[in-house]
């Protein structure tokens, strides 16, 4: 049974809201923005067809409040809700609420979200679907530390303690030896309890140089499940991806087929619907292990779009309309190489400390092979309430080498003033020999930059910057001196003034 979606409310903000709205416009579907108090002039509000306020700035008073979002959907007459990523995107209760309200939730069914959101249940589903798992054990009761330690020793150190309900590195600990185990277990559990309200943890063997490789899947109501290649996401800081690419430098057609089919298996096992991502760890011998399923659109979906030529958000809408996917497995062909750099308002050299402020300048790179999905524009404020990602810069090249070249060019072209950003960090990584050789793992950053110092300026840049500072001061001092004389001239454009000043200088002024 198909239904026509005419208006979609996007229950999100920032670049992903803008991304979904662009797909809506491409499809001639109306888009509805929601915004908190500090987001009233945010870029996603400006791009939308309609916009509704949903409460104060903190997300638990706005973007996370079911009622406010449902009310905005009612008022606007939206017939579907796209949750983006983060916020309510993996909240099965919200998906269920949408169902009850007669709104199409663009994502999997609530039960699937609930099942795969529980790491232990997801692990079980993966086992049933025949996916390889990292050797590991469930620990029901964290009070019996002796039994837990026995299990850890059975797996063998180093061992990873992970929260069952976890995500984003919270409630996670690497334990290198038995003596440290008990404390790590308790801390992981209490962290998980405070972060997710669920203190259950489990143990996994800790792979020392794993890659994070994930498979994009797409499933419709008609039983079609396909995979759309992989993404290599090994460059991580604080267990968060910062650079992603497709294809993975280590991928072979055989491995892609094996991993792709494994991803399709767990999707079938769980009755998966819509877009999703099956995450794997890949060891140095190219054996791979199931990690988890993300039941939503990923931040890094554009790299897949650029190599497959398919629009994943459009695909999500088609599937949500009950239609059959317009392409089958054999239509998925990869072309070239794509790399994404997440541009965060953070200071890389201060442990990626968030940086807030107003973007007094913002100019995106452009030209061949460059796609920027941004949530900001010139004048935008970076508020303290939300994730500090301002944009994703994605480049495509016919080869990985070309993509890296274009990526470096585009990073140099980026102009952001007002906040510190991760652009310099990306420039450093893209020039790193190991990265260029594709020799990476999730431990890449800690191995290559043990002192967390990423920004290295060459002499020429440093000297030019010093000159810029001196000239700025000189010009300001001179402006004060010249002030009285300049007042005689009626107001003109700044440009005319520049040329006039230059002419004065030419005349020996």
């Amino acid at each position, binding site marked *: 049974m198909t239904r026509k979606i005419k208006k979609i409310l996007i229950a999100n903000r920032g670049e992903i809201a803008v991304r979904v709205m662009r797909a809506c416009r491409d499809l001639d579907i109306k888009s509805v923005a929601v915004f908190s108090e500090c987001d009233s002039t945010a870029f996603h509000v400006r791009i939308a067809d309609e916009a509704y306020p949903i409460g104060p700035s903190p997300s638990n008073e706005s973007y996370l409040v079911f009622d406010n979002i449902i009310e905005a959907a009612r008022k606007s007459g939206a017939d579907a809700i796209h949750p983006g990523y983060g916020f309510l995107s993996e909240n099965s209760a919200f998906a269920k609420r949408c169902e009850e309200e007669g709104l199409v939730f663009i994502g999997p069914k609530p039960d699937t979200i609930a099942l795969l959101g529980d790491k232990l249940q997801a692990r079980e589903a993966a086992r049933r679907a025949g996916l390889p798992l990292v050797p590991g054990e469930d620990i029901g009761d964290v009070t019996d530390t002796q039994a837990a330690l026995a299990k850890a020793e059975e797996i063998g150190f180093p061992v990873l303690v992970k929260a069952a309900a976890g995500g984003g590195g919270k409630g996670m600990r690497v334990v290198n030896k038995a003596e440290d185990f008990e404390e790590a277990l308790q801390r992981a559990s209490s962290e998980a309890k405070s972060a997710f309200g669920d203190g259950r943890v489990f143990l996994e063997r800790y792979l020392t140089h794993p890659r994070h490789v994930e498979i994009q899947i797409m499933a419709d109501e008609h039983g079609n499940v396909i995979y759309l290649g992989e993404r290599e996401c090994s460059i991580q800081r*604080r267990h968060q991806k910062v650079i992603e690419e497709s294809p993975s430098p280590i991928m072979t057609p055989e491995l892609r087929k094996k991993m792709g089919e494994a991803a399709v298996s767990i999707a079938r096992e769980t009755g998966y619907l819509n877009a999703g991502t099956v995450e794997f760890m890949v060891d140095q011998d190219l054996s791979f292990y199931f990690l988890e399923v993300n039941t939503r659109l990923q931040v890094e979906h554009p790299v897949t779009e650029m190599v497959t030529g398919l629009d994943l958000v459009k695909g999500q809408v088609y599937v949500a309309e009950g239609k059959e996917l317009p392409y089958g497995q054999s239509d998925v062909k990869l072309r070239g190489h794509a790399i994404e750099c997440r541009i965060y308002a953070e*200071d890389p050299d*201060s*442990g990626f*400390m*968030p*940086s*807030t402020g107003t973007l*007094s*300048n913002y100019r995106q790179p452009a030209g061949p092979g460059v796609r920027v999905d941004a949530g900001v524009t010139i004048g935008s404020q970076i508020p*303290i*309430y*939300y*994730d*500090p990602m301002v944009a994703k810069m994605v480049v495509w090249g016919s080869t990985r080498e070309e993509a890296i070249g274009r990526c470096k060019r585009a*990073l*140099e*072209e*980026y*102009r*952001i*003033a007002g906040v*510190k*950003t991760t*652009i*310099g960090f990306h*420039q450093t990584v893209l020039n790193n020999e190991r990265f260029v050789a594709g020799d990476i793992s999730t431990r890449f950053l800690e191995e290559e930059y043990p002192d967390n110092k990423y*920004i290295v*300026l060459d002499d020429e*840049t*440093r*000297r*030019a*910057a*010093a*000159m*810029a*500072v*001196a*000239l*700025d*001061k*000189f*010009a300001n*001092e001179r402006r004060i001196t010249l002030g009285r004389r300049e007042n005689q001239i009626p107001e003109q454009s*700044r440009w005319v*003034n*520049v040329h006039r*000043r*230059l002419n004065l*200088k*030419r005349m*020996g*002024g």
Partner: protein
Amino acid sequence: MPQHYLVTIDEQEFDIEVEFVGEGYRVTVNGNEHLVRRFDMESVHSLMLVDHMSYEAFVRGNGEQGQRSVFMLGREIDAHIEDYNLAQLKKAAGMSGPGAVDTTVKAPMPGLVIDIKVSPGDTVSKGQALCIVEAMKMENVIKAPADGTVKAVPAKTGSSVEKGDVLIDIE
């Protein structure tokens, strides 16, 4: 009249003289002469042609006297500028230059103090975690900028702080 500055970036010092000449500015950096044409564009934004090398640069003060942020080639570069002679006098007098450590630990962004790990009287070493400030859904560890002794802890667990608020005082 030429002006003489001392610019410091990453502890590297640049002795810079600037003066107007017919076609632009003559800028002498550590004894090497450059001809620079400079065009103001929007507000803090300028184009420099340094011996024909093209740079777009945005310079702005970042709060404290002499401190500057330069946005160039996609990066933000921290710099400090001072009158050259004044800087030499200060050095001769043994006063702290721009490289000296600020022993007042301030909140780098608005947020919520969720943990304080030191008390007045504690000895701390450079890089040691002092407190944790949550902002943008992330916990940010504030570290000691130098070795020293904690003098005062104005920050309180559970309280909100604005950017620039003093968290910990070290001496």
